[in-house]
């Protein structure tokens, strides 16, 4: 620590150069952190999807519906707990650009199967009783400034017409990773109007969500469910919610891989920036290193000065970068549609990886100038002119 003052003074010998280097590192860290945050947000989406829930959907495609009548049959399968269902309602609230998921669901069972959406018992009771009521997520309530008792008018598209819902519940997301942007209402209420207007579309749901009694038996239960409907007009495909998410995400894997690679290319760039600064500094100080060696500085002590300086510059750049990363990620979270990344926040892991990466880069960047400084003999160092 006796050497810290020297390291500090050396680091800021060329203030402009050092500041530019640190700014370069900071910008690279922001880019790195942002990319990593996007990646961890994708992963988070897969990870929060449960292993104790199955999704049963139409075998051909997710967009084809399943008969409501399947509910009882699925419930009868051994190992199955509560069964609930949802239908994709979509529609437009206020304007097309502000999209959030809207589902027609079974009020009796839905919140049993999805305990991460937390309602007070009173809210739950009134929601169940009132056929044209709805529950929305906290984030949607905040975004549109909606209170309990307000009416939300949705312009239907898949289910044409105007639909008015009374807000009877605002659910709190249980975890940081829980989506707070949902809107759900009674499937029965929708289905009744469909029955009048489009009789042949009535009685269908989008997909079933099956709570498992024992997550270890997921494969077996899935197979039993799918076997029930083999050779029927609507065959099913059942898999765990996580597998379902993974398949959904797989479509984006090429982009994700590219981002992954890019984030490490950025680390490489930081390294070049720091190495360049260190090489310039070390070259200018060739004579000084000879002076220090003459005085008696050992290879170890000289290394400490050179590596220390490189790591210090890298670290300060990293600190600036990380401090700026928080507002940048926050700003991003505000500007991307909620449903793209239900959770988008700077993970501690990302910060830790950034700091470690930059530290390693700081050490690596000093290796070349260090080797040169150590290899140059004292006498040659004094004779150096450059």
């Amino acid at each position: 620590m006796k050497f810290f003052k020297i390291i500090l003074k050396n680091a800021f010998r060329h203030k402009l150069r050092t500041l530019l280097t640190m700014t370069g590192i900071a910008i690279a860290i922001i880019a790195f952190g942002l990319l990593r945050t996007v990646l961890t947000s994708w992963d988070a989406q897969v990870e929060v999807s449960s292993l104790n829930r199955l999704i049963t959907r139409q075998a051909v495609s997710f967009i084809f519906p399943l008969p409501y009548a399947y509910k009882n049959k699925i419930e009868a399968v051994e190992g199955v707990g509560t069964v609930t269902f949802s239908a994709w309602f979509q529609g437009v609230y206020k304007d097309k650009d502000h999209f959030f998921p809207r589902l027609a669901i079974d009020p009796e069972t839905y919140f049993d199967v999805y305990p991460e959406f937390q309602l007070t018992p009173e809210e739950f009771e009134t929601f169940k009783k009132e056929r044209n009521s709805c529950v929305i997520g906290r984030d949607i309530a905040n975004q549109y400034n909606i209170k309990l008792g307000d009416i939300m008018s949705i312009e239907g598209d898949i289910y044409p017409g105007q639909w008015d819902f009374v807000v009877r519940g605002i659910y709190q997301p249980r975890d940081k990773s829980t989506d707070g942007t949902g809107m759900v209402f009674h499937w029965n209420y929708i289905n009744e109007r469909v029955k009048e207007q489009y009789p042949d579309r009535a009685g269908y749901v989008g997909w079933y969500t099956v709570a498992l009694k024992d997550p270890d038996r997921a494969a077996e239960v899935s197979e039993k469910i799918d076997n029930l409907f083999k050779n029927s007009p609507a065959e099913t495909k059942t898999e765990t919610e996580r597998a379902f998410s993974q398949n959904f995400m797989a479509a984006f894997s090429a982009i994700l891989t590219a981002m992954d690679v890019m984030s490490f290319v950025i680390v490489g760039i930081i390294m070049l920036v720091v190495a360049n600064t260190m090489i310039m500094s070390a070259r200018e100080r060739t004579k000084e290193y000879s002076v220090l060696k003459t005085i008696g500085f050992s290879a170890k002590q000289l290394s400490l000065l050179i590596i220390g300086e490189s790591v210090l510059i890298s670290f300060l750049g990293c600190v600036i970068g990380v401090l700026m990363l928080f507002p940048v990620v926050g700003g991003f979270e505000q500007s991307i549609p909620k449903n793209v990344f239900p959770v988008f926040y700077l993970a501690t892991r990302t910060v830790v990886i950034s700091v470690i990466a930059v530290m390693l880069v700081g050490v690596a960047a000093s290796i070349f100038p260090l080797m040169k400084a150590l290899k140059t003999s004292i006498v040659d160092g004094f004779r150096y002119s450059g």
Partner: protein
Amino acid sequence: MKPIIEVQNLNKVYKKSENEIKVLNNINITVGEGEFLALMGPSGSGKTTLLNLIAGIDKPTSGNIEVKGVDITTFGESALAKWRSSNIGFVFQFYNLIPVLTAFENVELPLLLTKLNRAQRVKHVESALKVVGLGDRMSHYPKQLSGGQEQRVAIARAVVTDPLIIVADEPTGDLDRNSATEILTLLERLNKEFKKTIIMVTHDPHAAERASRVLHLEKGDLVDNL
């Protein structure tokens, strides 16, 4: 006078691709404890090379250098570094202070390699700077000092660890007459009052006058031994 440095059959050859340049030819010198020795000779005669070898910052091609009875040519690099830090003080022609460090910090550098604590270091640095007459310039940076003052800081840095031997390579070569005289007086005082053994390379006959003995090098040969 008790010998402190004994140079025996010292040779230094530089190889440049095919050519061999003989820089020092079979040099033999004995320096007594407390001597003030001046090395003179034309440019390229090998003065700096000889000084560097005696100070242990360069390795001879052959021959021995015994300092206080120890042959330093047998030392490895790190042993040599350690030996230098406690036995030799260096003064260079161009002062070679670290520009971002104050006078105090420059003088403190050699002490950072010792076990002294902060308070002890402060005491040593202050007394070294007082000896060279710069007690009031401790927080000045090199560029805020004159050449003569810079050289005095460099001398303070050389003596702060209290080494037995001081080597100086043209310490007045870059100074005006007055500053040069000050520096020489200071070296003389270190020799007389503090009993330092001094080996000084110089082109300046005035400087050589201060020495107790003058040696002349000519193309790598010691030509006289006055």
